């Protein structure tokens, strides 16, 4: 592998890792704060990708507007779903949460099949982001750079919200001691609903950004869900910085696994998880769960 290819693969790895982070951060927040294991999180990623496909004809060239509209729709969906399906799961054990969210996947897949059919759809890269750019030694697609930048921006925004705002303070407090936060008079019900909606919006955003690169197809949520579980396990449940670190690590291992061992590339990420479990079963950045 020559140096330019190596650089391009590194960029691919970072871009994939950042995309994973968008999905995994929502997953880890929802678990860390509400204690709910959400198997349906991959479905939100899928819903995002289908939103990108459906909205692209509606918004024409206004790609950024389309992303914002999609996120708003997804957040609304998350808000309602939390209300109807999740709000009474908090007191139940993990087993019931697994079942409920597993059932939601079935429903989401079937609704998707009714609304959008079972074909694979391609989503066009918006005009102003198409083509490649010369980066010194190599050329790289502009859209992939845009995806990196957008994910980084969101990650930064998430960091600022969680660490610098009042809402973020409540979220952090909620993650470390739920009952204390409740007894201090915080409206925990609303806090949960907001966090859940934000998690759904983040997953949908990842789906929307990924849609032009990966196309849109049935069952696309299942694959990313399991990789995100791996990310959360490696990073440590409930930790956003752990999720970022683990996402990048998984992105690197997966991308270079594909380069070096094409046949067994699917295994590399799981072997990484096995190694981390031997070394630090509580995850890289553990909060002591």
């Amino acid at each position: 592998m020559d140096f330019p290819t190596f650089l391009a693969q590194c960029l691919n790895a970072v871009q994939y890792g950042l995309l994973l982070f968008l999905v995994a951060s929502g997953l880890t927040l929802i678990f860390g704060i509400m204690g709910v294991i959400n198997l349906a999180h991959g479905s939100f990623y899928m819903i995002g990708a289908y939103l990108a496909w459906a909205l692209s004809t509606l918004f024409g060239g206004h790609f950024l507007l389309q992303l914002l509209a999609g996120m708003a729709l997804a957040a609304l969906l998350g808000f309602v779903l939390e209300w109807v399906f999740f709000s009474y799961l908090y007191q139940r054990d993990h087993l019931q949460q697994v079942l409920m969210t597993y059932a939601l996947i079935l429903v989401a897949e079937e609704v998707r099949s009714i609304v959008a059919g079972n074909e694979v759809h391609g989503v066009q890269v918006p005009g102003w982001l198409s083509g490649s750019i010369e980066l010194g030694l190599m050329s790289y697609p502009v859209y992939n750079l845009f995806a990196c930048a957008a994910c980084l921006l969101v990650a930064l925004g998430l960091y600022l919200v969680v660490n610098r705002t009042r809402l973020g303070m409540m979220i952090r407090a909620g993650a470390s001691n739920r009952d204390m936060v409740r007894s201090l008079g915080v409206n925990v019900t609303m806090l949960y609903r907001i966090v859940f909606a934000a998690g759904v919006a983040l997953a949908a955003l990842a789906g929307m950004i990924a849609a032009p690169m990966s196309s849109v197809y049935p069952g696309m949520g299942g694959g990313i869900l399991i990789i995100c579980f791996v990310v959360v396990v490696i990073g440590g449940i409930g930790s956003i910085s752990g999720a970022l670190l683990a996402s990048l690590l998984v992105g690197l291992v997966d991308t270079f696994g594909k380069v070096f061992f094409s046949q067994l590339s699917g295994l590399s990420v799981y072997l990484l998880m096995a190694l981390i479990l031997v070394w630090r079963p509580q995850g890289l950045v553990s909060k002591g769960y």
Partner: protein
Amino acid sequence: MTRTSHTLPPPPALRAWALPSALPLLALAALLAAPLALTPYLSDLVQKIVIFSVFALSLGLLVGTAGLVSLGHAAFFGIGAYVTALASSDTGPGSIAVLLPLAMLGAGAYALFVGALSLRTKGVYFIMVTLAFAQMAYFIFHDTHFAGGSDGMFLAYRPALAISGVTLVDLELPLHRYYLAAGALGATYALLAALQRSRFGHALAGIRANEQRMRAAGFNTYAYKLAAFVLAAMLAGLAGFLMASKDGAVNPELLSWHESGALLMMIILGGLGSLRGAVLGTCVFILLKEALSSEAIFGALAGRWQLTLGLTMIAFVALMPKGLAGLHTQWQQRRKENQHEH
């Protein structure tokens, strides 16, 4: 008898044994008589229920008895099936005496690897880690070509058992397949029933209730959990062997996590911690899925069975947290509460 027999309730052991313990025997009798009365389609359906009951019982040992929620149990089922297919020869039927233990050992070996790592974690971590390792096994069979890739592979001959040239069991015959599956279910049920009453079963129940206390009492809880994990996987491998012999083919979807999720639904549907519940839940789930996807019953909705099944599961979680087997106690409790009020 004496006056005391009126005032004292019957001893709990006797009460618990009266009707419920006769039910499995009745069910077994019905099971043995079934193929004589049923059409091939129904007989096949019953056989599927029987095989999945073995599979569900094995997961019940983990989730119900030891309190370990595994979301990757289908991996061991699929490995059992694949080992059967891979070890069968193309020139003649493989021996059950070789293939069956091999399938169970194959599943057990992978469980030793997965269990040793995943049991270092707890709770929701354990759920995610077992799921991820099951997916790893899925990718091994799906992405590589040694076992047919995503298409899976066929068994040229179904296994048979011959002693000094005389074929005793030939799984090419539907009746033989049926009775082998029924026998496996009986054996699994008896084994797990005995296990629940043994020191090992009580230790697992103790771990479910309070692991720290068990550790303080001197139990090596990690070893107990690992033993349960491997044993459950071996029984799942047995179910996988039966599945491969029934279908004469295997494919990666046997290992998919959708299978694991459906299996969890079966044991919870029946009610956790009871063997009868696992079998009952499997019956209800498979029949429900069969009914929901039958055009004769649901017409145009039949093609959308995932939607109806999903909504049914959501309703179930919301309304029956203790499962079907728990309905009876749920109802009794309510009656008792009503009596207290009066």
